[in-house]
């Protein structure tokens, strides 16, 4: 009996990620959000959203495009800075200088940049979901998604700011001390 239970447990552990990886439709994702939020809307509110939401979907498209542009610009500049730092690190390594601060900075920036890109990806999926459903027929799900966008925007802003702060502080935390040490 014990072995059977152990085997079942093992199968559950193996099967769970496989089940989780199955593709979920936009409507299902929004339905999950709706269920998680456990917010009840009045029939009047839902009827009002059913009428207004097609216009809202158009505004979401504008927001999505604008957002993608902001993100791409940042990734381009931050990516260039990262390459320059990596090149400096390689040059320092070749001359036998200790560049551990720079290595740490590149690592921190990489992690922050990945988190920023992940936030953007989640945000983008949510907006795409909201734009793709028939919102007039599913106003509750649509409102649940709109409520979630607020949280995703907050996460995106924090992730963007984390990369910014790392880079903004980098002269003081990394480059000036490294420069001083190199002078000596």
């Amino acid at each position: 009996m014990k072995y059977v239970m152990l085997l079942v447990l093992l199968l559950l552990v193996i099967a769970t990620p496989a089940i989780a990886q199955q593709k979920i439709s936009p409507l299902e994702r929004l339905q999950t959000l709706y269920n998680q939020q456990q917010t009840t809307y009045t029939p009047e509110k839902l009827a009002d959203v059913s009428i207004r939401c097609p216009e809202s979907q158009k505004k979401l498209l504008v927001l999505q495009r604008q957002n993608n542009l902001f993100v791409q610009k940042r990734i381009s500049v931050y990516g260039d800075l990262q390459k320059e730092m990596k090149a400096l690190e390689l040059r320092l390594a070749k001359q036998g200088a200790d560049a551990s601060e720079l290595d740490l900075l590149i690592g921190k920036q990489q992690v922050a940049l990945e988190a920023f890109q992940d936030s953007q990806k989640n945000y983008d999926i949510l907006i795409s979901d909201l734009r793709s459903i028939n919102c007039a027929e599913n106003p509750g799900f649509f409102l649940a998604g709109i409520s979630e966008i607020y949280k995703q925007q907050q996460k995106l802003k924090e992730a963007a700011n984390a990369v910014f702060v790392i880079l903004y502080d980098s002269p003081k935390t990394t480059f000036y001390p490294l420069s001083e040490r190199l002078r000596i």
Partner: protein
Amino acid sequence: MSLSFLNIKNNEKTTNLGWLIVVTITISLVMVFISLYIFFKSSAYDTVIQIRSANQKLAEDDLQGYDTKSPVQSTDLQNHANSIQPRIKQFNDQEDFSLELVDPTQLGL
């Protein structure tokens, strides 16, 4: 009651120490296997792979056009440091990712 190296006996049961060791090792192996399986299936492992591949790519391909050979002078580091803030100051995260942009009233609801 008698006690030996391999057998611990009491009035009711006999427990074989060798059998206990085998069971313990088997459970440990199963747990190690489960942990490894979860790790390899997790986003943490994906992130490790992504960072590793990103670093390799950065080191090999993307640095074409960048000086990676000449010795670094102190002024090189200062020049680079001085160029960072002007380049990133163009970004206003508070404005570009403002929460007002996603306010339901802004979205026409």
